[in-house]
């Protein structure tokens, strides 16, 4: 990689024969070529395969017969768990995306101050994002324990009788959302990076104009970081619809089997139901049909997001 820039430092003087626009196009394709190659060889075939199999009774190992739209029809009309899973997932996305965005952004603003020990604070807040694996889930079963858990104990100090969290079908999802919020350090980091890129001269100019801290935040900081907010929201929605691991593991908190969505199907997220269909019941064709329906839903939402973004996302580099 190091040699390329050196080699091409002189490049602009050559190739005068090609028009500027043609060269621009070629450069564009060259730049995206790593992705394009990877996509064609590693992603495209499996994707098309899964789309095709969503119209079959594919089970990976023994059969793959064309069944037309049967899987899609079953989903809407027969499968009792499909709607439940879709509801659970939508609930999760609707609550977790805004909470994550606000949480991450507030934290980033706090951590962007010049205060003693900031390096340590930043590490502390990033820590949850680093923690992963079974230990974390266990930790949360402990923290959200209805009687002895930290959260309910803290609530009782204020005279509030906390909910039963993972034992109560109404509170299991909020429990998962809280877990998610704990790991907000990842989003925080992105915003922090973005805040750092806001030119200081803008603030200096605003201050000379007599703008207060709040005005400076609202009129300078916020617009400048909208591209990253937009990124966080779009990927947050996409990722939120794919919530899986939390539901899979936390199903066991109330004594259910892993992936069962216990208590009373409240943690049965869309991907969990897909997983069960594909790898427990081996109805892979059906699971793939579910995946492509999800794809359609998320695609529409993302398209809407991009449409709406024209109204609020500010690109310093223009709208090219």
């Amino acid at each position, binding site marked *: 990689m190091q040699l390329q*820039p050196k080699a091409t*430092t002189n*490049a*602009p003087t050559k190739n005068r024969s090609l028009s500027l626009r043609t060269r*621009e*196009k070629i*450069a*564009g*394709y060259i*730049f*995206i070529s790593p*992705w394009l190659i990877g996509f064609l060889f*590693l992603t495209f075939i*499996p*994707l098309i395969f899964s789309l095709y199999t969503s119209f079959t009774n594919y089970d990976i190992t023994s059969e793959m017969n064309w069944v037309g739209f049967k899987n899609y029809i079953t989903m809407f009309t027969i499968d009792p768990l499909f709607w439940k899973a879709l509801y659970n997932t939508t609930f999760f996305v609707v609550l977790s995306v805004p909470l994550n965005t606000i949480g991450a952004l507030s*934290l980033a603003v*706090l*951590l962007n101050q010049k*205060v003693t*020990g900031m390096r340590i604070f*930043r*590490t502390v*807040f990033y*820590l949850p994002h*680093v923690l*992963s*694996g*079974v*230990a974390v889930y266990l930790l*949360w079963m*402990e*923290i959200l324990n209805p009687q002895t858990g*930290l959260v309910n104990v803290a609530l009782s100090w204020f005279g509030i009788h906390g909910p039963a969290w993972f034992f109560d079908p109404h509170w299991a999802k909020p429990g998962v959302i809280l877990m998610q919020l704990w790991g907000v350090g990842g989003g925080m*980091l992105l915003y*922090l*990076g*973005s805040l*750092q*890129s*806001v*030119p200081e001269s803008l*603030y*200096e100019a605003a201050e000379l104009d007599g703008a207060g*801290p709040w005005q400076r*935040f609202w009129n300078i900081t916020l617009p400048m970081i909208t*591209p*990253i907010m937009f*990124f966080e929201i779009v*990927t947050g929605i*996409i990722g939120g619809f794919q919530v899986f691991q939390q539901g899979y593991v936390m199903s066991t908190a109330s004594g259910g089997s892993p992936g069962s969505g216990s208590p009373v199907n409240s943690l049965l997220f869309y*991907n969990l139901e*897909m*997983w069960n269909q594909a790898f427990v019941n081996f109805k892979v064709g059906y*699971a793939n049909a579910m*995946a492509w329906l999800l794809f359609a839903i998320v*695609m529409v939402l*993302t398209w809407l997001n991009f449409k709406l973004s024209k109204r609020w996302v500010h690109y310093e*580099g*223009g709208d*090219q």
Partner: protein
Amino acid sequence: MAVNKVPGRYYVGRKMRSRIYKTIIFVVLIVLSVTILAPAWWMVATSFKSMKEIMTTSNTFWPKHFHWHNYVAAWEAAPFTRYTLNTAFITLFVVLGTVISNSFVAYGFAKIKFPGRDWLFSILLGTMMIPGFVTMIPTYVIFTKIHWVGTYLPLIVPSFFSGAFFTFMLRQFYRQIPNELLEAAKIDGAGHLYIWWKIMLPLVRPALATVAIFTFNGAWNDFLGPLLYVSNESQYTLQIGLTTFQGQVATQWNYLMAASVVALLPVVLLFFLFQRYFIEGSNIMGGIKG
């Protein structure tokens, strides 16, 4: 709000106000830190307990005795040193590949106009919307056909072909950079490769550091990838090693927590040491001046 440089005219009231303001922030941060750390401490506390204490007493935040030996015993329960080296090896390449390829591809999507760009970008985003396990088996079959199963190649090579998440993210960062900068460089005769490497990359250094730390984190903690593609126990990674403490009958919580703590130390340390890259980051204007 994020102002830290106060221009010229200092006066006492202002200084006072700023001091009070900073104290408030400090206190808020301390309170939040305790909230964040309490759960993590529970993990550490468990790592020092004996199994007997874990099984027979209600969970406490302070071990009765600190069994330091848990750490030694846990580490020796499986070839963890080997697993750490394996994990580090994979992670290193994945980080390298991810940072280079994504920053490269994202530049193309952000700053160059070419036909079909928006369509291709939609497809790129679309790849994020299909859950990984839908493509898991077909991808495994492909890697088997090209005889890569049993090596680290299926884990490392794809990272050199960029991916939707980081490409999209870096595209957003690139688009924050004013186009005038590019135009000026173009007039000076610079090509895109030069602009990307010499001008853009330094400007988005905080973002690159973020990509690096996220990727490091992800690769270090990856579980299913190594599990699927590795066919020999000597190639196992830390995350696979940690599962050996979860028995069919009983889990050795203390060892599991001890080994988990050690396993995540490198990530925390790395973050602590390298954070200046994305915190004291490159201000766009600063970048131009430099």
